C-alpha cells in the first residue's frame, strides 16, 4: 500500500516539475530582490517589516495559486487523458490514488516553499545585515504557510474528485477567501440569534480557518509564537486535511468513471 501511494506521489511531483511549476521561483526571487533593494532606498526603519511582510505574503500567495491550479487538475486531467483507467486497472485502490496525488502535490509545495524561504532570508540578510533571534519565528510563519498549503491541496483535490477544473478553481479560491475571514464569520454569527446563529456558527466552523494560520504580521513585528499554538495549529491543519481527503475518497469511490 505504502509503495503504491509513494509511486503515485513521486509521479505527481515529477509531473508538476515537468509543468514548469518551479519556474515561479524565478519570478518570486526577482520580486523579492527588487523589493529588498527598493525598500532599502525608500523606507526608514521599517525595512525588515516590509521585507518580512512582502516575502511571506508572496510565499503564501504563490503557493496557494500553485496548489489550486495544479490541485484542480489532479483527477480531472487523468480522466481526460484516460490515464486514470490505466492506473486503476493495476492493483491500485481509488483511495490510494487520491492519497498519492495529495502527497505528490504537497511535496511539490514543500520543495517550493523551501527554496522561497531561502530567498526570504537572503533578502532579510541584505536589508538588516545580520540575523536576530526573533528571525527564527519566520520559520514558524513558513511552517504555518505549509500547513495552509496542505489544507488547500486537500480542498482542491476534493473538488477535483467530482467537479470540472473551472468550478473546482472557483470553489477552492472562494473557500480560501472565506477562510481568511473565518474570524469575522464567527463574529457575524455571535451577532445573530436563534436558528440563524446556529447556521452561521456551523458555517463558520465548516470553512477552513486560515486566519489562525496567518501569523505574518505578528512575526513581522518580532512577536513570539507560543509552542501551544504551533501544536494546536498543526493538529487543526492535519485534522482538516483529513476531513477534506476523507470527503474526496468517499466521492471518488462512488464516482462513475465511464
Amino acid at each position, binding site marked *: 500500500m505504502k509503495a503504491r501511494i509513494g509511486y503515485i506521489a513521486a509521479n505527481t511531483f515529477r509531473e508538476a516539475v515537468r509543468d514548469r511549476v518551479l519556474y515561479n521561483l524565478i519570478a518570486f526571487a526577482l520580486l523579492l530582490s527588487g523589493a529588498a533593494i527598493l525598500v532599502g532606498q525608500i523606507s526608514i526603519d521599517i525595512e525588515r517589516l516590509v521585507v518580512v511582510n512582502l516575502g511571506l505574503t508572496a510565499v503564501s500567495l504563490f503557493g496557494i495559486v500553485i496548489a489550486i491550479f495544479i490541485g484542480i487538475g489532479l483527477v480531472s486531467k487523468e480522466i481526460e487523458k484516460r490515464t486514470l483507467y490505466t492506473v486503476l486497472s493495476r492493483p491500485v485502490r481509488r483511495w490510494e490514488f487520491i492519497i498519492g496525488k495529495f502527497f505528490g502535490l504537497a511535496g511539490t509545495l514543500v520543495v517550493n516553499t523551501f527554496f522561497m524561504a531561502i530567498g526570504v532570508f537572503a533578502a532579510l540578510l541584505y536589508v538588516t545585515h545580520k540575523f536576530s533571534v526573533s528571525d527564527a519565528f519566520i520559520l514558524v510563519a513558513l511552517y504555518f504557510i505549509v500547513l495552509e498549503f496542505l489544507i488547500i491541496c486537500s480542498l482542491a483535490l476534493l473538488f477535483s474528485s467530482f467537479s470540472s477544473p473551472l468550478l473546482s478553481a472557483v470553489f477552492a479560491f472562494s473557500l480560501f477567501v472565506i477562510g481568511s475571514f473565518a474570524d469575522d464569520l464567527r463574529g457575524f454569527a455571535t451577532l445573530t440569534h436563534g436558528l440563524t446563529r446556529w447556521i452561521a456558527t456551523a458555517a463558520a466552523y465548516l470553512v477552513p480557518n486560515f486566519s*489562525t494560520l496567518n501569523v505574518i*504580521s505578528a512575526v513581522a513585528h518580532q512577536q513570539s509564537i507560543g509552542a501551544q499554538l504551533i501544536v494546536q495549529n498543526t*493538529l*487543526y491543519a492535519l*485534522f482538516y486535511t483529513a476531513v477534506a481527503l476523507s470527503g474526496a475518497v468517499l466521492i471518488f469511490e462512488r464516482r462513475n468513471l465511464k
Partner: protein
Amino acid sequence: MTPQKRTTTVAAACLVVSMAACVLLLHHIDEIRPQAGVDDTLYINSPKVIQRASLGFNGLMACVYWTRAVQYFGYRHAQNERTYNELAPLLEIATALDPHMIPVYQFGANFLAPAPPNGAGEPARAVDLMQYGIRNNPDNWRLYYDLGFVYYTELRDYKRAGEVFELGSKAPNANPFMKLLAAQMAEHAEDYATARMLWMATYESSTQTDIRQNALEHLRSIKVDEAVTSLQNAVTRFIQQSGRAPASLWELAAAEHLPGIPVDPDGNPYELSFDGQVLVQHPDDFPFITKGTPPGYKRSGLAKFHTKD
C-alpha cells in the same frame, strides 16, 4: 465486508472524527492566539484607501469593520482593559465605508464618549462621528438623539443638547419625546427625572443588547442616586431637628415615617456611617452611581452588565 464498503466506512468515520476534532481545536486556539487582530486591521487606517482596496464591496467591508469594532470593545471590556484606542478608528472606517450604517453611530454615542473603563473617553470624536452621521442621514431623528445624548451625558453642554434635540424633533417621524427632551434641557437639565427620561429613551429605542444593558445600568444607578439624595436630605432634617446624627437607619425611618429601611434595586438595605453619611452596601454593583460611596472609594473592577436584557 467488501473492500469498497470498508473504505467507505473508514473514510466516513475519519471525516466525522476529524471534523469534531477541528471544532474542538478551534475553541482552544481562540484562547491562546495572540490578539493582534485589531493591529492588523488598522495597519491601513485610511478609510479612502480601504474603500479603494475593497473593489466596490464597501458594504461588506463596512460590516467586517463594524463586527471587529464590537468584538474589539467586548474583548477588551471583558479583559478589564482601560484603553480603547482603536475603537474610534474602527467606527470611523465602518461609517466611511457605509455612511448609512446607523447602529455604528449608536454604538459610538454609547461607548466612544464615556470615560474609561466604560468607554473610550473620546467625546469629541463621538461628536464628530454623530455629526458625520447626521450630514449623511439628515432625516434620521435617532442620530440627533445620539448627538444630544453625548452633549448631555459626557460634555454637560445642556444648551447644545437642547438645540440638537430641537433640531431632531423636526426630522420626519421623530419620536415625540425629542421635543420633550429639548424642553427639559432648557430648564431641568440636571434633574434626575431628565436623566431617567434620557436613559429610558435610549433603552426603548435601541435594539442592540450592549446599549440596552448599559442603559439599564444607568437607570439602576439613577435610582440609587435619587434614593441616597433623598435619604441624605432626611438625615439633614433629622440633624436640624434633634441636633445629632441618627444612630441608625431604623431611627431615621421611624422619624420619617417610612414603612421600613430603604433598599437598593438589588434589595440590599442602605447603610448609615457614624457621621451620618448614607452609603450603598455594594457600590461595585452600581457602576454609574455618583452618590453613596465611602470616602476614598475606588471601583475594584469594571462595570459588569449583570442585568439580563
